[in-house]
């Protein structure tokens, strides 16, 4: 039953509009590939490692094809010919390309490759690893006691993976259920994924496969100690989205920050590049049971949380549809929103509660990601503790799923170990104290909360109608989200987008989609 008396027809209409908005975008996506999508495919064929200058082999190959031949035919075209001719594995071929002993350019003029089958065993190897990770995760989660309250999510961001592990383990012992390793500032704009364990970063730690593995191992150990599965999060955003998901799937990350619009708006990454990249990322996440976290909370740090609440909802509908297009189950769609209203606003708590309940009601199966106050955190740690407490009450009452804990020292420094411990204590207290509060209350049908939720829904509907009329590309140019305007051919990474050649062949994406379909029918 609807607690907020939201109009179901409007909700359905929003979904239909989002679906229509993405028809053109999806048809664009289907006709294009990008450098990182191609590199992700190489990673999924077990190609790993770096050359003498620390450049990942997957970059060496893609750059080699870009410079010497035509990437629009896809890496699989070249690689399948090379595997056929040399009878070597993709990894061995990669190593020989580095040594300039193999030149893929000679296959450029060859017809559509009849040898793609030769690559399938290597892909299956990786799939077996991913499947094993899915089983391991499911088995451990099955042994973990079920709980109804939100999962407590904290971040670590020391820059040094070994120090991160120390912080993460300590947070888990204090009750953290999800650990996110924030990336170093700037990584989203790197067009390659750094390699190996790293100990230097600013405001975060490099996302590398080795760092993923180290943190996963530490969290597995402490999971056993505390007898519950602790989830690990990283960022599949920026210019290497699909590659990061590939690495995360192999190393059993459980969640990935992955938004279809965030990079465009906040990192000035080209929109075409982002759309193509997010699609591959989401298909792979969907297959690997990785929960995505979308980034609508960011709209509210840039523009006003009260005035622009509807842009969050409209974007959630769009993110939901992008995820559906990628074959993702609702249970994996961690749609984002945030508690970011100005504390000076009268009744801000009611409006926040209204919006949180609204999101819960509109997306009942999604593991909603709820973000804490950041914009109006001031350095007054005592007031900050109260702001976080109010946020925690809304989160528990409205049954959010992924509950990112606010830090009283937000706006001062990346969290100290004690900041995190105090935040966990605060959240655990409210989780206990308000456990069934949401079940006990109902909302005045003519009251402020119900009216606010209805209003935001209607505004979102109006906005989606406009986006449908204008098209998503134009809407983004007009700056409808976060008041940031981006042009269709502006931003970073457009030079890495290629229209697929008539001879472009893929079996990775299609086989992931096919396997998911088969899984559903089982």
């Amino acid at each position: 039953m609807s607690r907020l008396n939201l109009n179901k027809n409007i909700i359905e209409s929003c979904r239909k509009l989002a679906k229509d908005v993405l028809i053109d975008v999806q048809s664009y996506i289907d006709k294009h590939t990008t450098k990182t999508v191609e590199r992700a495919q190489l990673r999924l064929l077990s190609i790993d490692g770096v050359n003498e200058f620390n450049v990942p082999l997957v970059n060496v190959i893609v750059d080699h094809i870009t410079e010497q031949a035509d990437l629009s035919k896809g890496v699989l075209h070249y690689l399948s010919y090379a595997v056929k001719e040399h009878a070597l594995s993709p990894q061995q071929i990669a190593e020989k390309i580095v040594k300039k002993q193999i030149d893929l350019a000679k296959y450029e003029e060859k017809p559509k490759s009849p040898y793609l089958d030769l690559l399938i065993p290597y892909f299956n190897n990786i799939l077996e690893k991913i499947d094993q990770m899915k089983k391991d995760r499911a088995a451990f989660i099955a042994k973990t006691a079920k709980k109804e309250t939100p999962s407590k999510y904290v971040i670590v961001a020391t820059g040094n993976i070994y120090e991160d592990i120390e912080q993460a383990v300590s947070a888990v012992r204090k009750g953290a259920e999800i650990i996110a390793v924030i990336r170093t500032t700037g990584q989203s704009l790197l067009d390659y994924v750094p390699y190996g364990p790293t100990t230097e970063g600013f405001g975060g730690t490099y996302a590398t496969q080795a760092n993923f593995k180290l943190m996963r191992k530490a969290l597995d150990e402490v999971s056993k100690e505390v007898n519950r599965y602790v989830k690990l999060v990283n960022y599949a955003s920026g210019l290497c989205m699909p590659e990061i998901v590939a690495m995360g799937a192999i190393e059993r990350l459980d969640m990935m920050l992955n938004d279809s619009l965030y990079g465009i708006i906040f990192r000035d990454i080209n929109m075409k590049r982002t759309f193509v990249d997010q699609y591959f990322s989401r298909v792979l996440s969907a297959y690997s049971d990785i929960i995505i976290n979308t980034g609508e909370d960011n709209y509210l740090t840039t523009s006003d949380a009260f005035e622009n609440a509807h842009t969050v909802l409209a974007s959630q509908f769009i993110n939901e549809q992008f995820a559906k297009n990628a074959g993702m189950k609702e249970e994996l769609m961690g749609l984002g929103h945030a508690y970011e209203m100005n504390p000076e606003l009268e009744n801000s708590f009611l409006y926040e509660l209204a919006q949180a309940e609204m999101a819960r009601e509109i997306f009942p199966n999604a593991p909603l990601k709820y973000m804490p106050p950041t914009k109006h955190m001031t350095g007054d740690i005592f007031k900050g503790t109260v702001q976080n407490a109010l946020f925690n009450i809304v989160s528990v009452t409205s049954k959010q799923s992924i509950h990112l804990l606010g830090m009283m020292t937000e706006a001062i420094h990346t969290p100290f170990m004690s900041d995190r411990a105090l935040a966990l204590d605060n959240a655990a207290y409210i989780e206990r104290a308000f456990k069934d509060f949401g079940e006990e209350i109902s909302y005045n049908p003519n009251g402020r909360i119900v009216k606010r939720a209805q209003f935001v829904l209607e505004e979102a509907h109006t906005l989606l109608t406009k986006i449908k009329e204008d098209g998503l590309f134009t809407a983004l140019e007009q700056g409808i989200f976060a008041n940031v305007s981006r042009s269709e051919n502006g931003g970073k990474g457009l030079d890495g987008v290629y229209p697929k050649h008539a001879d472009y062949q893929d079996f990775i994406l299609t086989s992931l989609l096919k396997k998911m379909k088969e899984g559903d029918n089982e």
Partner: protein
Amino acid sequence: MSKKEFWIRPYGDTLNDGKVQLSFSLPVSHNAVGEETAKQFALKMGIHDPAVVHSAPLSEGFSFYIVYGTIEHQVDLNSVKIVEVESKAMSMDQCEEFLLENFREPIVFVGASTGTDAHTVGIDAIMNMKGYNGHYGLERYKGIKAINLGGQVDNEILLEKALEHNADVILISQTVTQKDVHIQNLTQFIELLEAENLRDRFIVIIGGARINHALAKELGYDAGFGSKKYAFDVASYAIQALKVKGIKQK
């Protein structure tokens, strides 16, 4: 003749009782040794009668303490010197009036969060129409053309854009200050300006929660603004400085 001395201590509930509170963690397990160690730290800081009012384990080998005590130090208020922006802060209306009276064309502000710093909350608060905490941003000011380049803007690009837009004022926001990354970045921008012989062409202002005017001066900037400073503070300083410089004068 020097001013009269005026010594003070922190205030709890009685003048000069010297009461302070502090909290910190120690890489020590939570036990009596940890608690005594916490007291020792307080004593070394000149805090008498330290009372550990709360302590808790954080993790294996780490513990947390809240301590109250009486600080022995005192400070002569009249010997305290501060470096502040030396200009009168005007309201938005006053700024607009000032702009109209003194300049023949709009003043161009180009701003960005630079280097690897992706946080735009600071630059947005100063520049975007909406502003922050009820104080409109520079985009709203009549007589100002505000161009916000957003986050992660390279120093070279910032300069290029400033030249392209004929900027009078450059605003740089820095939020990430871990391991002093902002110092390196800010130093590099000033060096870049000097290398190109362009330092005098712009008023260059930095801002951020961990920025202050003293730091700005030390690094070679015209001014620095920390937290609780709004668009009108920045605008007031910049336009008064431009008037002194004689830019776009009527």
